[in-house]
């Protein structure tokens, strides 16, 4: 945990007062951190002498505070990647000008129209989408719209790469397969009066540096093909997926995953609710399957991952990826979502009930004012232990004995509503009224699945910032603006 988040956690009375006033669950964000994270990516650009922008993938978090804070960053360094009409409107309303916006994802005509209207760059998925965009631009007299072409299917493309070696990739529903690029180039030529090709893009859903490096180099080579056809592209957009390290200590993560294998084999007691194996299963004493878990310990994540990707030699031309981009005079775009909101906040849940588990007196059920969808740890395979914030502060903590294994259950009347299927080991048994803080989840995982099932409240979100004297001030997420004292203050 980095300083701002760590010191926020130390102020338990402040967090209790927030949860008392605004209810449980509650998301608390530190907008300043998102700007610091963007700056860390900027430092990687500078180290490699690259120009281009870091685009925040808005889908990572629907907070206004984060978007407004990013809007206040250097316009030449930070942009926003929006994947829906509402996100686009939100980004514009938060202070992003159209030229800093990239429109990606599935797009309906309204979304395309507004993107073209405000001069956003459209990340085009297919020839059909390009045709649709060009038709809109023509019919509504819009300006020539800048487009990036998103490519996919690099693995089936034999191109100039390694004879005899094929790097397989997960299939994606996005992007135009490299093998079908000819039709895309032809469409770009047909519609040259409505759209301007500014570059090529890819997004691979993998943590594999090898695959990404290969795709990056292939884009550089294809940029040359575009130039030869008379286009003047300048940008290679390598998407995101740089990751976050959730567990600092490699040993801790390794011991846990080993223990999970052993539990699946029955060599030790289960570590999960009803012996769930996270995708691993016992097949006659052999572990089969793959663990569906986010690799929680990632020594290489976020800006460090980008740095490594840019430093690696490309497979065909044998130059570092950054050198390739620089030598070809290309700008680099990246779209980190999760990595930009790393350490940006936490989710709070109130402890509502604590009782021993009938069949195993050493273990407890802890029911909290939150449900699985509010933090969706399971959907993302993220294993984060909560930090207990005792009511009344650490002075009264001593009582309830030592470490204890608890199952965290949620506020829905459903057997399946577990905050995590994992047995969570807490240093002390929590008490009713304590808060559990899930660090880092407010940054990425809290918004995707939250719902109003059973009329349980969804989390409100607040933005907090540190005052000069060390105290925290807060405001509702929607009221945050990146001004020193937005609500005015006597000077």
């Amino acid at each position: 945990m980095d300083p701002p988040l760590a010191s926020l956690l130390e102020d338990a009375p402040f967090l209790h007062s927030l949860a008392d006033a605004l209810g449980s669950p509650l998301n608390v964000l530190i907008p300043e951190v998102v700007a610091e994270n963007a700056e860390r990516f900027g430092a990687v650009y500078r180290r490699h002498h690259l120009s281009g922008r870091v685009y925040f993938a808005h889908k990572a978090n629907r907070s206004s505070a984060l978007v407004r804070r990013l809007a206040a960053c250097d316009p030449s360094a930070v942009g926003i990647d929006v994947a829906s009409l509402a996100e686009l409107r939100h980004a514009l309303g938060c202070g992003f000008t159209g030229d800093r916006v990239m429109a990606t994802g599935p797009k309906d005509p309204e979304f395309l129209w507004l993107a073209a209207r405000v001069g956003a760059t459209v990340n085009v998925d297919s020839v059909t989408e390009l045709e649709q965009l060009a038709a809109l631009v023509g019919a509504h007299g819009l300006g020539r719209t800048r487009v990036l072409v998103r490519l996919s299917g690099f693995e089936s493309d034999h191109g100039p790469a390694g004879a005899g070696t094929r790097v397989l990739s997960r299939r994606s529903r996005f992007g135009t397969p490299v093998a079908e690029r000819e039709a895309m180039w032809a469409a770009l030529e047909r519609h040259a009066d409505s759209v301007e090709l500014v570059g090529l893009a890819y997004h691979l859903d993998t943590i594999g540096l090898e695959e990404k490096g290969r795709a990056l180099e292939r884009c550089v080579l294809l940029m040359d093909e575009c130039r030869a056809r008379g286009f003047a592209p300048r940008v290679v957009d390598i998407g995101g997926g740089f990751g976050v390290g959730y567990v600092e200590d490699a040993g801790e993560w390794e011991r846990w995953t080993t223990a999970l294998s052993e539990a699946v084999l029955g060599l030790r007691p289960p570590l999960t609710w009803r012996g769930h194996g996270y995708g691993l299963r016992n097949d006659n004493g052999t572990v089969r399957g793959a663990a569906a878990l986010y690799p929680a310990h990632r020594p290489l994540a976020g800006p460090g991952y980008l740095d490594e990707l840019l430093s690696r030699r490309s497979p065909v031309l044998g130059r570092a990826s950054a050198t390739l981009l620089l030598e070809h005079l290309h700008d680099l775009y990246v779209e980190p979502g999760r990595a930009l909101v790393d350490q940006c906040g936490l989710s709070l849940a109130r402890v509502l009930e604590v009782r021993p588990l009938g069949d195993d007196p050493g273990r407890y059920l802890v029911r909290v004012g939150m449900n699985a969808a509010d933090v969706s740890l399971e959907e993302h395979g993220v294993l984060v232990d909560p930090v207990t914030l005792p009511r009344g502060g650490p002075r009264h903590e001593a009582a309830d004995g030592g470490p204890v294994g608890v199952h965290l259950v949620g506020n829905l009347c459903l057997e399946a509503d577990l905050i995590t299927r994992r047995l969570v080991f807490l240093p002390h048994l929590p008490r009713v009224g304590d808060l559990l803080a899930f660090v880092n989840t407010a940054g990425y995982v809290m918004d995707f699945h939250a719902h109003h099932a059973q009329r349980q409240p969804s989390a409100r979100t607040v933005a907090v910032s540190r005052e000069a004297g060390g105290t925290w001030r807060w405001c509702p997420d929607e009221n945050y603006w990146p001004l020193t004292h937005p609500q005015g203050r006597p000077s």
Partner: protein
Amino acid sequence: MRYDSITEAIGNTPLVRIDPSVHGLRHIDLYAKLEMLNPFGSVKDRPAWHMARPYLEDAASGDGTVVELSSGNTAKALALLAGMHGLKFKSVTNRMRVPEIKDLLLLLGAEIEELPGQSECLDPTDTDDPLTRFHQALSEPGSAHLHTDQYFNPRNVEAHATGTGPEIIKDLDGRAPDWFVACVGTAGSSTGVARVLREHDGDVRVLGLVADKSDFIPGIRTIDEVHQVGLFDPATYDSLAAVTSQQAIDGMITLIRRCGLLSGPTGGAAYHGAVRHLASVDAELDGAGRRRTAVFIVCDRAESYLSYVRQRRPELLGRPRRGRSPSEVGDEAIRAAKARAVDVDDARRWIAEGEPRPLVVDLRGPHAYAALHIEGSINIVDELFAELVRDGLPFSKRTPVLLACPVGEKSLRYAASLARSGHPDVRSLAGGIVAWRDAGAPLVRE
């Protein structure tokens, strides 16, 4: 020895005693079973041949393919065996981590399929598990594939139970060793040999070595990974211990430099693990007046792992220094060379009107140069240029030179280096090709 086929040379490998002055054990004779002397270079020659033989001998040569999940020695042996029988070989792997092995496989005519990396955004609905798809493809009707399936195929174990194990007993004059030490990869050799030795003498102790979990030793699995191996049975081993890559390299260096055994890191790991384990046993034997024997396996040879060693222990491959490379130019010299930077306008004038005109050297990669460059410039890629100027100047001192790189940083360093080597008029394009482009100066395509 005269053979009709190289496959007859598989097996019957030597058992060589390690000099006690090297390992320091006073009451234990330690022997190395030199599986690296199999014809294709490793212990995997045996199971590869044993698993594939029935199919290969039947196969009408032509369109069949042998496939295996292997990034190493099994793939190597199978590729050679398949080739001898007119078949193709395809290796499916979770990443070739040792570049020499990959190049070697390509040389042998193998096709390599690298499985995708782990997904960044977890998708619980993902049915695209590459291994599952691999197995589906194999079991499609009419597929002309032989999947040797080394991690589950009992013929892998059998190859060692009928070969490696009995050979050890024979060479120890009909006795089984007291300890048998093996690294666990597919668990084939450890399981097969252990079975035979125990049938011969129930008191044999078996030590299995795995790789430290956060580390990587080619051919050895970690404690989690062994649980995914069908042939792995914990009952085979009296104990399991972990070895790090550093310890494996230490062991390898001892075997190479002191014993004349050109072992790879897996053999090094086995040696290190054996000596570490036996040291305490040896101490207990003090005064007992008995001698014991132990055998470990040297799986393969060192040559394929030079990059592995270079990455982890570069000092072992230290090379003598040559002349100074431009990257060794000090910051002071760089500051002094600032005067050698010319901006785009001055550079354009110099190129147009200079008497004599400067030679423009573009230090970028050839592909980038071909895409766009300053007209009339020549391309010497930076790495090559650095090599050239170590030993002198690649052009006359009477020729003025303008160096250009992407942003003018590297070219300034090189300009400083050339000036130090005595070139009177070498300059660097300030801001590089990027500044040239941004100023709207012309760039041409090849």
